[in-house]
């Protein structure tokens, strides 16, 4: 017996112990002998005895109560199954005996699994493993299996005994657990991923909020601030407040565009945003932190949850103070430009008009005297020539020739007038100095006459002294000329304010003229008096008109026949308060004289 037990245990016993299954040292020969017998299982009835067989039977009985037991021959044909085997496989004993174990193969294990098992047991080794089998009804079950080869005298396996325990529940639990664990770790990984994504996004949003130049303030439905970025603090000078929205205008110093009316709380873009409205507006901000005030442009829009319901509002705003200033500057410049264009256009139109009248008049008025000279010379030489000395006739020829040459000169002067332009050189000018110079120039004409000059102290004007001197020369010369019939001539010079401009007035007590013809007064070559009565070219007042218009001023006259005339023209008052009396103006005017 010991010969049999030897090969089984020496090496294998240690392995079995290691696996935690204690096998008592049995007599294998006896075990093999009784394994096939019905009696072995039915040995319950037998009372325990002292002899080894009795003890073996009892142990077998105990084994059958606990384990699923089967034996096969070396070909694998089932030679014995116990009741538990039948119960779990759902096959009857008759159906199993003589069958190969393959009848239970579930296909779960690879071929190699069974090859390895066979290899082990065929080599006389005990094999242990977990196997999934298929029952008769197709259901599967797991068994913890130990296959023990029983050896013959030559050490070859003679039969195999398989002892199995049902571990299906554990296996199912394991599988469930494995599934749950996998699901759990999948969820955990996902959670981690989304958490990281959220963190990244939050960080990104934070840095966007921190770095943007626009102020951004967001509040929830209750008006509690949830975002207040650094730009918002910089622009408004203050941080987020816990005050209710009705106090925001007062707290931050928000005003309407008039810069004094507090911005109505219910109209604030953020408040309207919380109400679900999208708006853009400009407002003025002034608070202790922003003493000079800031103009901001604010856009408000509602914040919505994923269902689209309003859950707060966000206001984005930026400092538009400089932009507004620039816009205002542009507007002002545009207005100035428009005004200047209009002024220039008017000046240009006047100039064109005068040039046209001038051209027209030159062809008429200057040619006439030439015709007279030529005509009378002709008559003279025809009617009286024969009685004249040769020298006189020669003189007449020269007169005719002179008239012809003058005709050419007139044409050339006409061309010159079209080209010649005087650029305005505006400077603060003391008008009284200019007038004094003109009056002294006119003294020769006034010689032998009684002339009262009543000259008021005029404010300094912003004008071209050379041109203004021409104006006074013409107007004062006219005053002298048309007062010639008076025993005592009175010429008054004064000024008055006329729509923010200074209107210079020159009044005389001369013969005057009918206002019926006043529209002709300033036309080139227009005359209201016959040449015999008062000499003149008809250019003087046209020149005055042109000069004043060039200054952007206005000229007009009031008169009545025989009751004197008053001429007015406007000039820009000089803003310079300190004109030194060393008088560039006087010198310039003198140079222009």
């Amino acid at each position, binding site marked *: 017996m010991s010969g049999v037990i030897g090969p089984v245990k020496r090496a294998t016993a240690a392995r079995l112990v290691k696996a935690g299954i204690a096998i008592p040292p049995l007599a294998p020969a006896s075990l093999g002998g009784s394994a096939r017998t019905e009696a072995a299982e039915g040995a319950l009835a037998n009372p325990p005895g002292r002899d080894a067989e009795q003890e073996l039977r009892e142990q077998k009985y105990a084994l059958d109560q606990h384990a699923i037991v089967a034996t096969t021959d070396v070909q694998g044909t089932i030679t014995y199954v116990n009741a538990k085997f039948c119960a779990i496989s759902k096959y009857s004993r008759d159906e199993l005996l003589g069958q190969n174990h393959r009848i239970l193969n579930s296909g779960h294990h690879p071929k190699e699994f069974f090859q390895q098992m066979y290899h082990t047991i065929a080599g006389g080794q005990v094999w242990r493993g977990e196997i999934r089998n298929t029952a008769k009804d197709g259901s599967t079950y797991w068994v913890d299996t130990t296959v023990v080869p029983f050896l013959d005298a030559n050490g070859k396996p003679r039969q195999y005994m398989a002892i199995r325990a049902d571990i299906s529940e554990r296996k199912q639990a394991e599988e469930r657990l494995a599934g749950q664990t996998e699901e759990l770790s999948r969820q955990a990984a996902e959670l981690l991923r989304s958490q990281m994504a959220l963190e990244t996004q939050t960080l990104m949003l934070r840095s966007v909020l921190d770095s943007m130049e626009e102020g951004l303030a967001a509040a929830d439905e209750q008006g509690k601030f949830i975002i207040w970025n650094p730009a918002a603090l910089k622009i408004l000078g203050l941080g987020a407040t816990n005050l209710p929205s009705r106090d925001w205008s007062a707290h931050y110093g928000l005003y309407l565009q008039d810069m004094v009316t507090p911005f109505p709380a219910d109209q604030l873009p953020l408040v309207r945003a919380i109400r679900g409205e999208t708006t853009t507006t400009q407002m003025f901000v002034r608070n202790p932190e922003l003493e000079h005030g800031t103009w901001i442009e604010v856009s408000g829009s509602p914040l919505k949850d994923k269902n689209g319901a309003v859950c707060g509002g966000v206001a984005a705003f930026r400092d538009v103070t400089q932009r507004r200033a620039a816009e205002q500057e542009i507007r002002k410049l545009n207005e100035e430009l428009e005004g200047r264009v209009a002024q220039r256009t008017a000046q240009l139109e006047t100039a064109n008009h005068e040039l046209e009248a001038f051209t*027209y008049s030159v*062809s008429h008025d200057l040619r006439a005297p*030439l015709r007279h000279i*030529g005509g*009378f010379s002709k008559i003279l030489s025809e009617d009286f020539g024969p009685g004249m000395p040769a020298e006189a006739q020669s003189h007449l020829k020269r007169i005719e020739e002179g008239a012809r040459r003058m005709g050419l000169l007139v044409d050339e002067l006409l061309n010159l007038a079209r080209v010649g332009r005087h650029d305005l050189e505006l400077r603060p000018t003391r008008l009284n100095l200019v007038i004094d110079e003109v009056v002294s120039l006119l003294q020769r004409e006034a010689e032998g006459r009684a002339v009262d000059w009543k000259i008021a102290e005029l404010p300094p004007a912003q004008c071209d002294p050379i041109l203004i001197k021409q104006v006074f020369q013409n107007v004062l010369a006219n005053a002298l000329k048309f007062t010639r019939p008076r025993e005592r001539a009175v010429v008054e010079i004064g000024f008055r304010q006329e729509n923010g401009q200074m209107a210079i007035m020159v009044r005389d007590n001369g013969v005057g003229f009918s206002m019926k013809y006043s529209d002709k007064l300033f036309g080139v*070559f227009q005359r*209201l008096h*016959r*040449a015999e009565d008062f000499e003149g070219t008809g250019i003087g007042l046209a020149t005055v008109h042109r000069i004043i218009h060039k200054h952007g001023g206005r000229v007009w006259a009031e008169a009545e026949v025989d009751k004197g005339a008053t001429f007015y023209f406007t000039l820009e008052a000089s803003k310079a308060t300190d004109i030194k009396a060393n008088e560039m103006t006087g010198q310039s005017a003198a140079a222009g004289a």
Partner: protein
Amino acid sequence: MNTNEVDILLVDDSQEDVDLTLHALRAENLANSFFVARDGEEALEFLFCTGPHAGRSFDHPPKLVLLDLKLPKIDGMQVLKRVKSDERTRIIPVVLMTSSKEERDLVSGYNLGANSYIQKPVDFDEFRKMVKLLGMYWLVINRPPLTNGWAPAAKQAQ
């Protein structure tokens, strides 16, 4: 001088032009009866028998008006317009005489009913020739309507 028997009304503010014109007319014996008006106002007073000429009659209009364009107070174009727009004076031949070379004067002159438009030449010989032709044509060759040709219409108008 009986202003009711005037052949030529000469309207010119230039005494020189007046003298030169008359000199030329006299040479052709065409200046037997003339009246000189020195501005537009006086010309209108003569033609419409008002002011100093209130005694004149519309029955004896001048046979020719030589009208300068550039005149004091009321210019020649205005005078022409008044004359040609009034039934009583419309038939009077009006010749515009001017130094102007402006095309627009020529056009507006004819538009207003001028009978001729003459540019006074600077050269006296040409001027003389022109005045002679004008005088001969309007005073000798041309046949004016009956002196009272306008009268029935004027009376009807009254």
